[in-house]
């Protein structure tokens, strides 16, 4: 391109952050629900929490933290002009997202197989607190899972733009904003993991 169109990278990043703040409040609402019901049914929450798979939760935590590292590195790589490295790191991030969702699939399948899902006959026979715990578990990890898929699609789109040179070392705010969104996914999981898998 010969002419330089108006660009405001700082403004673009600020806009992304404003959106992320609304996301924090969205998940914040779910965490408030969790906190109130934890205060109301501490024993039932402790019993139900022990049924979640700690290995699945821990592996997914490591996967997401690593994917966050990869995407952070990809931003630095592109800023330094290493396009190939940036593409490899982005591919690694998207692969991590896929790995996370595969784990989630097996984890949810095992739960559903044991009759643990909202409105199941198994849940009807249990205490109210346990039902609330698993309902919140499905809503929170489900909404988080949607964010993982959206984040991976976003990174896939940026991958294509980096590959064909539309996003490069002189114009990388799009990659930065997609990375910010991905870090948010990691950030939310940092709270979901201890609250659902480890508490009590």
């Amino acid at each position: 391109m010969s002419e330089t169109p108006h660009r405001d990278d700082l403004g673009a990043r600020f806009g992304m952050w404003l959106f992320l703040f609304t996301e924090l409040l969205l998940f914040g609402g779910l965490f408030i629900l969790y906190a109130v019901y934890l205060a109301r049914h501490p024993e039932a929450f402790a019993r139900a929490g022990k049924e979640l798979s700690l290995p699945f939760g821990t592996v997914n935590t490591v996967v997401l933290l690593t994917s966050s590292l990869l995407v952070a590195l990809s931003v630095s790589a592109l800023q330094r002009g290493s396009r190939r490295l940036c593409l490899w790191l982005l591919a690694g991030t998207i692969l991590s997202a896929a790995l996370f969702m595969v784990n989630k699939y097996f984890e949810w399948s095992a739960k559903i197989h044991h009759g643990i899902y909202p409105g199941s006959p198994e849940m009807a026979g249990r205490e109210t607190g346990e039902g609330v715990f698993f309902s919140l578990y499905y809503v929170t990890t489900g909404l988080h899972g949607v964010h993982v898929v959206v984040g991976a699609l976003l990174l896939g789109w940026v991958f294509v733009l980096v590959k064909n040179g539309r996003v490069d070392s002189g114009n990388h705010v799009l990659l930065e904003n997609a990375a910010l969104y991905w870090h948010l996914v990691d950030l939310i999981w940092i709270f979901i993991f201890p609250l659902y898998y480890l508490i009590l």
Partner: protein
Amino acid sequence: MPHPETPHIVGYGTFIAVWVLLLALTAGTVAVSKIELGVLHVWAALAIASVKSALVIAFFMHMKYETRLFRVCLFATLATLAIFIGFTFFDVLYR
């Protein structure tokens, strides 16, 4: 405002160090959950999660290198969330 904007490039080593720290804190939070602490568990888990998220926001999300406006707005968001949680619990605990 400087134009064109010169990006602050964070070194690969910094990111890897932060990642190692995050993994160590994850191991820490799993270890703490095995100790018999009762209600303290919740606070210990939340404390570790807060440190981890501070690391992610400061380094991975470049907050440390952004202008002050970003941090002021982040603080406003967290304060709003704290007010939501605080006022909900005034109601829930003392009803």
